């Protein structure tokens, strides 16, 4: 028995002059229409005389009321029957389910409102960075980053020194092969070199980590102190101390490096048939990691905050985040390629808000395993229908689940110490994306859709992605290849943007920005081609013409 509607026979008898007519109709219970409407339809459909309408209405109202009550009683009785027959442990089970749904979903019933870890710190920081303490905080961060960079420079020097020492030794050994050294010696030497190198770098790594950990602790304390300090409006002792600390650093005027993209162009576009929403699009030719690097500028002895960096710091805990899409391989680590470069940038200063890159990646690896498990389960579900032929391909991950991801998956890392970026989407890609034939069903393209969806869900208002879906230039990337790829990405992104649900409510005012990055090396001519293609694919909003009237 279910709550679905049942049909009940309704009989209505009325007299016309001498003949007695009876109307019999099935009435769905519960009746979703009003009784009046039902009567109206009956009157028309059966051509009933108008003087019976009132009677019919009354009778039917009664009938529907009775039958509905019976239906509802029936429903409840079924449940009560089940209750009578239920064993005690089943009742306990149900009671537990209810308890769970109350304790997990309602504030009144959770044991105590547990304040999430670090929430207080988050709120304090957000408050301070939006006050006059901003400058002091900036000084503090700078002081710390100088210390970190010091270590990094020392590390790089030491490692370089060790490297050259080792290569000299090796050179000597190879030269003197068969004279003072034999093959075994050389092999041993190489092994020793490797060991030494590893030890050395581990030591540095350790030192860096300890330093950053100490800084992190100190930073937190400072935040709490600052919060007390500035309460009375005047700049307090703590602020002065921090200022003094950073001012005592050796002054080295750095040249003002403006890392503006080599070529860039912005557009405002409108989407939507009737109601238009406007979005900002930007096409830039640059090294994408320049969005992450930041160097504090010291000019004439004064610390000059980089405006983009300030903006990022201020919006860290806001509802307007910016993110970057990096293209990575399927392994969740930071050993090679752009992954390594990015990790190095992250290491340049301490992240005071989020765990360091390694820790974040470790957590992600665990989730990646879970994801693979899910994937396997899904495959099993689907596979049971079309035999087990596909088992062979996934044979490699038989034992424990691999933490390697698949093309089209992505993972996210959070950062507070980068120039213009809070979040990085690491989108897993492979060589197939270099194929000119990659179409709109390619997993990487589909992943863009998921990325945009996450962006809507988590208030990411600026997102940067590679227009060619690769950041490097390869020889197969001819002009034709580039324009074709750009067209594909533009069109797909447009489609995804139109599909995106508005997150509702007060969303209307804010516009989202999507930045398309092309490699630094492309020709001006190609860039122009791309920038004319963009407004053709997206509908550019009409600029307001003030000369009119």
């Amino acid at each position, binding site marked *: 028995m279910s*709550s679905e509607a049942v049909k009940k026979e309704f009989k209505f008898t009325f007299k016309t002059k001498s003949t007695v007519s009876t109307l019999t109709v099935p009435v769905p219970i519960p009746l979703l229409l*009003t009784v009046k*409407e039902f009567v*109206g*339809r009956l009157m028309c459909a059966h051509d009933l005389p108008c003087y019976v309408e009132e009677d019919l209405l009354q009778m039917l109202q009664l009938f529907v009321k009775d039958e509905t009550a019976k239906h*509802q009683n029936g*429903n*409840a*009785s079924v*449940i*009560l029957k089940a*209750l*009578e027959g*239920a064993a005690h442990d089943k*009742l*306990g089970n*149900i*009671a*537990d*389910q*209810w*308890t769970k*749904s109350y304790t997990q*979903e*309602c*504030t009144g*019933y*959770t044991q105590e409102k547990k304040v*999430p870890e670090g*929430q207080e710190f*988050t709120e304090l920081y957000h408050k301070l960075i939006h006050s006059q303490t901003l400058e002091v905080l900036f000084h503090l961060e700078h002081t710390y980053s100088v210390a970190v960079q010091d270590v990094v420079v020392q590390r790089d020097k030491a490692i370089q020194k060790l490297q050259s020492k080792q290569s000299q030794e090796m050179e000597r050994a190879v030269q003197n092969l068969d004279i003072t050294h034999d093959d075994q010696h050389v092999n041993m030497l190489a092994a020793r070199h490797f060991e030494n190198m590893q030890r050395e770098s581990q030591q540095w790594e350790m030192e860096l980590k300890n330093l950053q950990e100490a800084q992190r602790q100190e930073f937190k304390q400072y935040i709490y102190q600052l919060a007390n300090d500035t309460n009375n409006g005047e700049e307090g002792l703590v602020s002065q101390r921090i200022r003094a600390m950073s001012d005592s650093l050796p002054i080295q005027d750095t040249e003002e490096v403006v890392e503006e993209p080599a070529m860039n162009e912005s557009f405002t576009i409108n989407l939507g048939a*009737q*109601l*238009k929403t406007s979005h900002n699009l930007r096409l830039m030719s640059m090294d994408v990691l320049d969005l992450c690097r930041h160097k504090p500028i010291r000019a004439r002895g004064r610390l000059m905050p980089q405006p983009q960096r300030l903006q990022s710091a201020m919006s860290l805990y806001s*509802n307007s985040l910016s993110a970057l899409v990096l293209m990575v391989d399927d392994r969740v680590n930071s050993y090679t390629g752009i992954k390594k470069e990015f990790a190095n940038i992250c290491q340049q200063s301490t992240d005071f808000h989020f765990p360091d890159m390694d820790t974040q990646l470790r*957590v*992600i690896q665990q*989730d*990646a395993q879970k*994801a693979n498990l899910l994937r396997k389960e899904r495959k099993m579900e689907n596979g049971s229908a079309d035999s087990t032929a596909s088992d062979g391909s996934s044979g490699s991950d038989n034992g424990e689940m691999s933490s390697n991801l*698949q*093309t089209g*998956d992505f*993972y*996210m890392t*959070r950062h507070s110490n980068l120039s213009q970026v*809070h*979040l990085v989407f690491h989108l897993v890609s492979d060589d197939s994306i270099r194929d000119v034939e990659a179409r709109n069903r390619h997993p990487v393209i589909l*992943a863009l859709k*998921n990325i945009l969806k*996450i962006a809507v*869900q*988590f*208030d990411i208002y600026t997102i940067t992605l590679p227009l060619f879906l690769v950041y490097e230039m390869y020889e197969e990337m001819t002009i034709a290849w580039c324009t074709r790829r750009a067209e594909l990405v533009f069109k797909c992104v447009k489609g995804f943007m139109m599909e995106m*649900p508005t*997150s*509702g*409510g007060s969303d209307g005012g804010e516009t989202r920005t999507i930045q398309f990055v092309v490699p630094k090396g492309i020709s001006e001519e190609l860039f122009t081609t791309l920038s004319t293609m963009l407004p053709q694919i997206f*509908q550019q*909003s009409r600029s307001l013409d003030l000369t009119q009237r």
Partner: protein
Amino acid sequence: MQPLGKANIGVSTFYASSHAEDQCGADGLPLTPNSIKIQGRYQWLKVLYHPRLCQHIDIVRGKHERLMIIAEHYKQCLEEESENDTYADEGAFLRLAYEILEGLAYMNENGFVHRSLSPKNILLDAEGHVKLSKYALYYMTGCGADVTFPVGSPRYMAPEVLMAGPSHSSSCLPSGPKSDVWSLGIILLEVALHFKIWPNYALPQLFAKILLLGKYGSSQHPLDTILKEHSLVEKFESLSSNIRYLLRLCLQPLMEERPSAKELLQNEIFKEFSPSPGLDKSTYTMFQCQGMRCEGLQVPQYIEDVEMTDDEDYLAERSVNEVYYLWGLAGGDVENELRRNGLLQSRPPICGMPNVVTQYGDILGLERDSTSLYDDTVVMLSLDQLRTRLAHIPPEDYYPLIEGDREMQKLSQSQSSHDLKELSQLPLIIREKDIEYQLHRIVLYDRLLKGYPYTINRIKLEARRDIPPLFRAETWAALLEVSGDFMADYDKIDKESPVPIDHQIGVDIPRCHQYSELLSSPVAHNKLKRILKAWVVSNPHLCYWQGLDSLCAPFLYLNFNNEALALACLSAFIKKYLHKFFLSENSAVIEEYLAVFSHLIAFHDPELSNHMGSIGFDPKLFAITWFLTMFSHVFPLHKIFHLWDTLLIGNSSFPLCVGVAILHQLRDGLLNADFNECILLITNMPEINIEDCVKESIRIFCHTPKSATYRQHARPPVKKEESSVFALKPISYYTVEVNELPRSELSREPLSLEELKSERCPRISAEDLLELCGLKGIENSKSPTKKSKSSKPIILIIDIRNSEDFNRGHIPLSVNMPFNQAFAPEGDLVACPAVTQLNNHKGRVIVVVGNRGTNAPNFAAQLTMLGYEKVCTMHGGIECLKSTGILTVSSPDL
């Protein structure tokens, strides 16, 4: 709508559950977000009124599936009050029970149940009467399916509710109305005996206990079990027999034996009580209620010497949703109120990011945000700011005189309403946000609409200034002259049985104005389908053309809880503005319409018309949707509202002027574009400034001779009964239909379509010509083209016959430009005194008059080609004027 009285307005909030992953419905479209589903269901609650229920006012959708519910609210609730001895008296106790049952019975009648009845949400108004709140949560969330939290109050849930389990799967049976009676039983028991059941039990034990009450209900009455476990048997016996009887009934474990709320109300024990009085029918407008509103009307006695007290609260006399609306205009914002009370705390998004997302959209590493838990707190909106804002409004402004002569009405106006005169000159957007202006408009329209149809002419007059958004729905209905028992008519139409067009309707609806939260809800889809089907069924001679859905959308949006009125408005609208457009063979109608449209473009903007002609950019390529949907397909709803506000007071030719006004705004873009770019520009339709567009349309309308928009397929004059209020004389020239003027031999006659299409310029009737040059009597000189009684004629008549004919007789002040001598071979005008006169006349109407035939139209076309504005020809040629005797012969000396 009930007046505010001493009520407060409260807001509460919760999250709808979000859909997992990338799910699609059976139709392949993305699933409707749950918050939108809830929003759709909620709308109906706004019009549900019962004195024992808190009135629902509005629902607001926030970011990320958050919903905010605004409803009537009271500070006092049963939970606190029951600790006093208020209900020790049997009468007071039974009254409490009776009033709660009244509320429950009303809900059951309307087909939904409370399910979370608890002493906390049984509120008490200033007089101590019951007001149930939070009663619709179970209903609006689709029996709890659209939220993650359980709907119910643990202590008071019935065993059968618990047994069904908290899961929201569709297989799970929804709770019935009698479960509320159980909750009531427990609540009353607690009140009667001053205790709480199982106060020290943790949730699991509590639930188990209640379940056991049901399990062993047949062997021992749950009431007895409870009494025994709390050792209250003796105390219970000391209660009056009526109370004991009532409690025993409410807690019956078996469904058949437990009475429904309605049955209980009719029980002997309540025979002293009578139902709470509802709202008087006379407080409704004609559109809101069926039947005679004067039924049972009691005119209050006029008391001569009522003393005016200063502290009279006039705001309290306004209805709750008016007050809420004004509160919003006074700067109120529900999200802010919630935030101020700590209910809208959410963690920064960066702290809640997931770690991994797979290509299938599986999201991993997402932590549950503890701030998204359900909190049932209600925050009261402070009306202080609103009251201070309106403190200086004098009492008489709340009761404007709308009867009596102008002098009297003026006398009754206060100083502040004079200031409003100035306000009414400001842009519409500002007026709509100005609280004082809106208060005055609301008060006025409220009274006018209650007086409809008697007040129809005053409504039309006021609508020319503006229409307050709060009353737009009914004002539109009034402007469209909806009358009669449209509700009964709607009930009679079969909207359920399948018809062949169902499939097309089903395809169109999910694409119709879906950016609107309201219209994208399943409830809205169903309503739209019903209205469209009802229209198709009730207009068998017409058929469904795509676009009807767009046309219906504004009416549905405004009359969401009144389908019948939406249909009545739609039908009236189509009859007036789209006569014959929905015939299955409508090409002749549309082509005529478009030909007239082309004439109007040429008349007002020859340069654009010439350009469009040269690149072959025919209005047929874009304007059919414009007119078939009266622009509702090309603009978002908020723009359509402003556009139609004006469109509805104009006549059936007004839409043509709107079309020209839109082209005027796009003019620069179009003039610089080739054919393809023009098509792109128009199909993408850039943002149009609607207020400018409306102003421009009115200007164009006023500068178009009425007969220029004559169409043979326009709606024939409607006969109206003499006695009907609608038969009164139209209030202005604008509203008169061309077809409703008395016909004479000087009027326009239908042209064949070929003829119409071959001509570049509009024709005007001889009547209009006479009127325009002031040759007709003064009583008829109401034409808007005549600005003042200046000596200069406002039109220039060019007589293109040869000079002999001209000398034999011509219209006074007309200029002779014989066709065969006028143009040089290159097409330019040959210089002569007449041409100078023509050039001096730029910007005025130029009427080309000749003999019957194609000469005059051709001449006019050539003038247009040369960029002359406002060129038209006279229909019927000079011959038709012979009988009027106005033709003069110029004296030979000149």
